[in-house]
């Protein structure tokens, strides 16, 4: 009986949660998607962000209006930030380190590009200008990542510009990020992996 009580109490005392883990093991949350448009003529860059200050909580996120000049070519840089804690964490670093498992897609009614078929409503053209090899050693196909893109605006108008970030890690040793994913998205097929960001900007092009 005594030994039994001893075993009982020592087992309860030694109880730990499954997997001892340090507190800083949580994943980062993307709270902000920031677009920076640098015009090719060297004038001041234009920024617009989507911000959800409480992460995926009850308060809705807000999107900045995006006003660009018609008939201009911009280098669009996409950044993903976690502004929940201090200092702000730049998740774009993590994405660059895992460039072979991430891709940014640019679509929406206002866009014509690999992920968006051209239509009468399109007012801007999208083109990828970065590759996986820009960010590190690359195995397999050298596919675009989408953190740096070229947006060529057409005539004035308004429409939606959608930025989607997909995280597509290897599945059982096989890569899920393969060539042609943007085209599949344009064709209306479901893509592999998970959606980490899907934000919509209201694009307003004016003649300047």
């Amino acid at each position, binding site marked *: 009986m005594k030994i039994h009580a001893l075993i009982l109490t020592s087992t309860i005392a030694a109880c730990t949660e499954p997997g001892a883990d340090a507190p800083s093991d949580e994943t980062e*949350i993307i709270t902000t998607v920031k677009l920076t448009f640098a015009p090719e003529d060297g004038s001041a860059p234009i920024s617009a962000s989507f911000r959800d200050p409480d992460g995926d909580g009850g*308060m809705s*996120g807000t999107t900045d209006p995006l006003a660009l000049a018609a008939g201009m070519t911009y280098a669009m840089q996409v950044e993903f930030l976690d502004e929940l804690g201090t200092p702000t964490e730049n998740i774009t670093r993590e994405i660059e380190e895992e460039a072979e498992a991430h891709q940014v897609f640019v679509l929406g009614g206002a866009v014509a590009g690999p992920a968006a078929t051209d239509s009468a409503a399109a007012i801007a053209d999208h083109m990828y200008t970065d590759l996986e090899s820009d960010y590190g050693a690359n195995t397999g196909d050298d596919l675009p990542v989408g953190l740096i893109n070229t947006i060529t605006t057409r005539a004035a108008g308004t429409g939606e510009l959608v930025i989607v970030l997909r995280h597509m890690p290897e599945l*059982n040793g096989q890569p899920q990020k393969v060539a042609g994913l943007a085209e599949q998205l344009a064709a209306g097929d479901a*893509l592999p*992996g998970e959606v980490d960001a899907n934000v919509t900007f209201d694009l307003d092009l004016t003649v300047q």
Partner: protein
Amino acid sequence: MAACILALSAVLAAPTPPSERCDLVVRGRVVDASTGEQVPAASVQLGVRPATVTDDAGGFRIDDVCPGTHALAVERADYQRHDRSLRVVTDTQADIVIEPHAIEQIDDLVVEAPAPSTSELDAGTTLDGDALDRTRGRNLADSIAKIPGVAVLRTGAGGMGKPIIRGQDERRNLILFDRVRHAGQKWGLDHAPEIDPFAAGSITVIKGTSAIRWGPDAIGGVVLVDPVPLRTTPGISGRAHIVGVSNGKRGAVALAIDGAHRRAPGLVWRIEGNVTRGAATITPRYALDNTGTFQWNAGTTVGYLRDAFDLTLSYRRNTMTNGLCTCLRNDSPEEFALSTMQGRPVNADLYSREYRIERPQQRTAHDLAIARSRVTLGDAGDLTATYSLQNNARREYAIVRGGVDGPQYRFDLRTHGADLVFERAALPLGPRLDMVGTYGASIQHQDNRFDANVTLVPDYRQTQGGVFAIERLVWKRFALEAGVRYDGMLRDASLTERDYEAQTGTGRLHAARCNETDAGGGLCRFDFHSGSASLGAVLRPIPRAETFAIRLDLASAGRFPMIDEQFLNGTAPSLPILGVGDTRLGVERTWSSALGVSFANEWIATDGAAYASVIDDYIYFAPQPSDAPGGLNDTVRGTYPVFGFRPTGAVFYGGEYGLRIAPPNWPVEFDGQLAMVRARDVRTGGYLVFIPTDRYQVGITYRWPELPRMKDGFVGATVSYVDRQRRYDLDADFLAPPPGYVQLGAQAGVAVPLDRQTAQPNQTARPQRSLRFALVGNNLTNTRYRDYTSLLRYFADEPGWELLVRISFDFEATGPRGRTKRSTT
């Protein structure tokens, strides 16, 4: 010659020696072998005397017994007849354990063959003995899924599931292990109960409101998982199981050993443990990637059992690691709609069947420690006091970036429980009228911590207590039961700064009950009170057919809102919705009624029930109107519809029916069952979601003739049809219900006793051992199907065919009852 006659007459004239006087008393108790409960109204016959009947406590007393060896026979209609010899030298106490009869014979159909006595009025269906052993190797929800009225809410994590009883999910039903409320993160749809079914000696499902006895949230029903009763005689016994399942290449090994020693009378111990490991299961077309599972359980119990007093201490640990299917993924609403229409997970051809469990996965560890004492207070009754401590640690791991090692969600729930129950002995009020009562009080204190980088539910502390009283009036063929209960709860929730700002910003916090703390977070205090009452009656109107019973139950119970119903604030895993709570929710009041009819004779056993419940302020998770403010939420993954808990009026109604036809002396049996549930939202007229669909099942079983080395042999087949859910609300759901499906199952089993039984009294019984084999096949036609009450139905098919093989080994070595000196002559 003369001396001889003289001696003879002397012998004949000699007075009877005192030991030959027939004034001895034999008394005892008759107990059910599997539940340990007393068996009232059993007939006890000693020798050729007229039989006597056990009272409501299972006790009997036979006076004026002559010393010597007598034949003792104990029987009751639903138990196997028990014969033994009893050697009577002085006043004797004989406790008799008898095996239940009707339920053992049933394979997949569980039909309650009611007892003639009515001292227990709960409409419970018990799985024990062979019927329970046929479920070994399955998780808890699947073990009871064959009972009509019980369905399984599948979670998509390693095949786990939660029970749905009469359409009510785990929010509104209770699971009790060893009569202690299982405390886990019940509110999560994908959180399976952390209970080890191998530890069960019997599983009882009580359908319908059992709120008075067990708590105000037991509206749908109660699942009582009771361990095997502890030994009362010296010796060692044990049970071992080895289970193998083809789909998912799963294997399980379980062992339990009980012991009691002659030198320490009353002291009994038990040690048990089991391990299960399974790989990913497969559907007919592809594997369900990453649905492997690994579980182990260990437990120990020590008891000191006497007639008037017993004390038991037990501790057990349940740990599970379950992989979540890769097909469950976080999507934007548009992507979700696209992939659900595809009907097949993307990259399903890359899915594998391996054992390795990767992210996403869930790991849980549940500790349960119980200290319980029962005291018999003379003739007044039994008093039982229980203290329990539970620790539920849940870790959920999502797919992450950047070398992150640990879990993304941590839940820690510590629960202290204490209760006191007094079972008053039967009070005879008249010639055949008894009054039996049960009174109790219970209190539970919980402390929950939630850690993650997102908001979901706040940390909280809550204390809940209740008192109840149940009285039963038992006549010969009629019994009436009335119960009342009162519960109160005090909850203190502590919100983080981010959570508090978001909830006040959207106007969801109850201003009067929540205050901001210095750290910027929030502290909310809520208290709830509710009274519950019930009335039940059992009538056996036909004198010559004691097994024909009609029961009626009426009840009203008030359920308190759970933590997520009040404070939920976050995105649900895998489904693109934002879930919010409502702190203005109040007590949910259920008015329920149920009518049951059952009958059994040598040919037929049948059991049917119909029920209807009206629930006021039913707390329903439904979409907010999308045009109202707060109806849509822009998250980083897109514009999510917002689902909130809102009070509405609900009506649940339905019925179950089971039938078994087993002509005596025929080796073939037929059985059938059906169950239906309907549920409507009274305010909108719409249908509620995740209500089980209609199920029908028929089966046939052939029993082999008994041979000395082959007992309980049977072969059977079952066909079941699960209907499509025709009553659904596409606004509150994302996908139309899947089509109905037909499943074919088959079972076979046999028991091989390894020793012959001895029947000599007072002799050392030889060890009793038996080996039992079973082979069960499910979904033998390898049908592709999706189940409406499965979270997997948006993403992938359910598993295909499987074969389960089980070998069970029971052994029993009873010590000698008393040393007898070997005579040298």
